[in-house]
């Protein structure tokens, strides 16, 4: 997999600076503006990719930051970017909306990303590019995944997040994320093999 999203990783000094910003915001909510401006686009985009509606995404993003600010006193700094916590809040908000059937779940995919997933099924395959039929099969197979499986696949392959970031957002270890990923690929491969028969 190429083009891992480097935006997630912060230097040690950047994380320390962020801790200071969080502590300031805990004392004075107006200081939360720094974190809001820093992560607004990221959180908006995360939500937008999952509900595909600009105005609804704006509302939900606002809700995420309201909840974050209201719960900031409970936040414990753990040496990881603040964005992981914001993403968790966003994820919870989205799940509430999906359960209430307020929105339909959407996923944005690029053809080259779908090909990367197909290449995982058979790394020794020397075909230059998977054919369109396989690509369509994979898209159909995505509907067989449950919401957690789809989320992990989406974060890793369609959003190019490193395992470190994925593990922080989903609150699991990196090795567990990798094991889960392995199973999802295996499951998709199985589904596609059945459909090919």
């Amino acid at each position, binding site marked *: *997999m*190429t083009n*891992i999203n*480097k935006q997630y*990783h*912060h*230097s*040690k000094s950047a994380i320390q600076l962020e801790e200071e910003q969080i502590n300031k915001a805990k004392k004075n*909510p*107006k200081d*939360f*503006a720094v974190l*809001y*401006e820093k992560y*607004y*686009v990221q959180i*908006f*985009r995360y939500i*937008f990719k999952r509900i*595909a509606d*600009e105005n609804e*995404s*704006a509302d939900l*993003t*606002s809700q995420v*930051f*309201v909840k974050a*600010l*209201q719960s900031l006193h409970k936040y414990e700094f753990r040496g990881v970017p603040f964005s992981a916590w914001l993403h968790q809040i966003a994820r919870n908000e989205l799940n509430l909306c999906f359960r209430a059937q307020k929105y*339909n*779940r*959407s*996923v*944005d*995919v*690029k*053809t080259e990303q*779908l090909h990367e997933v197909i290449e995982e099924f058979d*790394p020794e395959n020397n075909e230059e590019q998977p054919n369109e039929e396989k690509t369509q099969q994979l*898209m159909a197979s*995505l*509907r067989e*995944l*449950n*919401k957690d499986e*789809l989320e992990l696949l989406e974060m890793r392959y369609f959003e190019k997040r*490193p*395992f*470190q970031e994925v593990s922080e957002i989903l*609150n*699991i*270890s*990196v*090795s*567990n994320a*990798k*094991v*889960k990923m*392995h*199973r999802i690929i295996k499951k998709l491969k199985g589904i596609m093999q059945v459909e090919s028969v």
Partner: protein
Amino acid sequence: MEDLNINRDKPDITDEQILKHRNFDAVMNTVAVTKVPWYKVGKFWLLGGSAIVVLVATVMLITNYSTSNEEVVEVVSNTIKDAQESDVNQMVKEEKEENQVSIFHVTPKSMEVFTPLNLKIQVPREVIIDEDASGSSIFDVSITNLDVPENIELPPHSKKESFQLDFSYNDKTVEFYGAESTLVKDESVTIYESTIDGWKPMQTYKYDKEVVLYDSVPTMLLPEQSSRPALVFDSEYEIENKVAEFEEISGYKNFVFQPIEEIPEGWYEKNMWEDVRVEKIEDGIYKLYLLKFDQEKECLVKLAFPEGDFQKAMNQYNTSFEKQENLSIEKGRFYVLNDGGKYIVLYP
């Protein structure tokens, strides 16, 4: 997810479009308007609770002073009752900062007196709960050690009846299933996990509660032992592609590199690296460039199997590994603790 909308090759929303919606003042206004109801405020309960305790204590003192019969009022105290009083459930609160056990609750069923075992509780760092094809639950357990509190009495290994022992750590209630283990290895699923210490097969075991438990068996040193742990790669960082130009190792799927020099402190965790580059110094000697955040470190390495007979060496390693694994199962007993969805494995 039948109603999943898949948007293929849709143009990304731009930052400019997103930033049109950014409005911190609106967030502040919403937070100011949304106030926490008084009954949800922690201070209310703290003050209210304190007032009630003072009131009860006062009434007790007055009652005790005025009645002729000395009536002993039992107050729940912070002690553990004898586990043989089977009709009594006890709540004990112990604050232990180190091992984070906070509540201990015993519900004994036909327990015998026994000598406490010197056990360590292995606490899951995290657990994946999944299902296999038969519908049995599968639990991936990554565990750390936690000392068993001294005042917890655990059932003996030979107890045939199932019993239940509840205790809590981290404020979560834990159920403890302790039937006699009849763990049978489940051959249907095997996953190998590569780690910096070597290959770790993750085996499954069928248990009488139909819990299929994933667990890692103890690791072994690689066949070519060294004073430093090796770096093992499977499909991570596309190492296979990066070494494709080096004829002597191209075509392999898995790589075991032995560091020749010390890896800088804080750089050993493979999962912390963003990327790895490989440069060949000479046959069998390579330089890894480890990228983490915005820094890069170099590390000279050599192949752990310089003869090139990697697969044969790995086969030998796996055979030795299996022998050790079987020995672990014969020697050990597994107890599974249900931590409200998380499982802890107790090893004697």
